[in-house]
């Protein structure tokens, strides 16, 4: 079971990819099916079960897209 | 007769031209008169002579400047060269004859001479030369009463050492005495 939970404020995402790059579990991807108000494919969690809630995605996100919770 | 009097002070830097003229300004204010004090400024600042214009009046002073002062206090020869033609007709020159080796070239002026440096040497107070001439000047003109000036002496020199104030007072009185005896 996942120990962490990630909440995305997708309308703020500029798809810079820094969270995707630095996620130690490699479980973040761009959501090719969605285009947000800024015109980007926002980031999404591909395998929620794998998230450890380490917070690195939030740490590297320049746009305050990500809120992280952990058990 | 208008009460307004404009007095030019001129000498070289270090002769105490600014301080003697300031003294007069303080004394005039102390005596309840209107007064303005304007140091030489701008182009006249460079060139060795320091000068300063004091205006004293019972009424409000409109112009603190003039082309033709009523009186001039001349502390050295270059100042005489420069200002003898500026003084009003029938005006008065007060000349430090120790430092000026010629007579005034105008015959419409009253010229009063004081061998200021000699007197200062006699008092062993060379720095007091300016106060000697000022004392003589005030005794003669009563632009401000000598008594009024003496009354404000401590106040005007406030902040200075007692001994310095005393020496200036002595020099001032020597000038007063010179004027009484010679003019």
């Amino acid at each position, binding site marked *: 079971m996942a120990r*962490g*939970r990630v909440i995305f404020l997708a309308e*703020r995402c*500029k*798809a*810079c*990819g*820094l969270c995707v*790059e*630095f996620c130690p579990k490699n479980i973040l991807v761009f959501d090719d099916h969605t285009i947000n108000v800024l015109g*980007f494919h926002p980031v999404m969690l591909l395998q929620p079960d794998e998230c450890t*809630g380490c*917070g*690195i995605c*939030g*740490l*590297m*996100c*320049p*746009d*305050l897209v*990500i*809120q*992280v*919770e*952990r*058990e | 007769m208008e009460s307004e009097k404009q007095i030019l002070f001129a000498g070289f830097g270090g002769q105490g031209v600014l301080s003697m003229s300031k003294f007069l300004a303080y004394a005039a204010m102390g005596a309840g008169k209107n007064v303005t004090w304007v140091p030489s400024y701008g182009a006249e600042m460079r060139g060795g002579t320091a000068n300063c214009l004091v205006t004293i009046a019972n009424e409000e002073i409109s112009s603190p400047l003039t082309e033709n002062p009523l009186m001039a206090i001349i502390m050295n020869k270059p100042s005489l060269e420069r200002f003898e033609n500026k003084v009003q007709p029938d005006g008065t020159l007060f000349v430090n004859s120790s430092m000026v080796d010629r007579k005034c070239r105008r015959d419409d002026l009253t010229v009063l001479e004081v061998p200021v440096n000699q007197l200062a040497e006699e008092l062993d107070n060379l720095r007091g030369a300016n106060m000697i001439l000022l004392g003589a000047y005030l005794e003669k003109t009563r632009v401000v009463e000598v008594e009024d000036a003496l009354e404000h002496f401590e106040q005007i020199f406030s902040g200075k050492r007692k001994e310095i104030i005393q020496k200036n007072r002595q020099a001032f009185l020597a000038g007063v005495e010179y004027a009484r005896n010679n003019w």
Partner: protein
Amino acid sequence: MKTVFKKPESLTDAKFHYCPGCSHGIIHRLIAECLDELKIREQTIGICPVGCSVLAYEYFNCDMLEAAHGRAPAIATAMKRLLPDRYLFTYQGDGDLASIGMGEIVHASLRGEKITVIFVNNTLYGMTGGQMAPTTLLGQVTTTSPYGRSKDWEGYPAKMAELLAQNEGSAYICRTAVNDPPNVVKTKRAIKKALQTQARGLGFSMVEVLSTCPTNWGLSPVEAMKWVEENMIPYYPLGEFKVKEE
């Protein structure tokens, strides 16, 4: 579940106007987290520069001023002198701080002004379209050094942390980067230390943060982070250059 990561209270809800991947956003957030953790948001006044972060007054949830180009340290100086119990920080880019504002920053440091300067070094003028800055690296191509910056023509890049560390008035001078998670954590630690230096009244404090400009560098955000490591850090070494303890 407990929240381990969210927007700090010291930032407003406004969306940043910065380009994708620009590290201004990270640095803003780190400052805000420090204000939250030190509980000084209401005691803090920030001054933002002219440059990409000119609009920073819309993002920080504390009293803010917008300064003329390069003059934030002068503004902060007067404010701190008149409000000595407040925290003053300036947020300045490299053109603002190291070029047009070189005089103000050096003298604020010499006077030991008890202010905290966050200096964002991304090696060029971002807002105006990528011109050469005093921090542009040798050989680096910008729109006004199209053949690459040359030591013989444009001269050498300014090492501001080293320069200001020499001043007796400087109490805390540190250079960090935000190119990877460990460095981001270190940057936050440095900013907090700088604010604490101000709190203790020790003197001038500055954190120089090596930052990215993916747009004007012509790199992706991820490539830009690597560029910091490969090109900037070798010339601009990280670490503390001055730590006054009293």
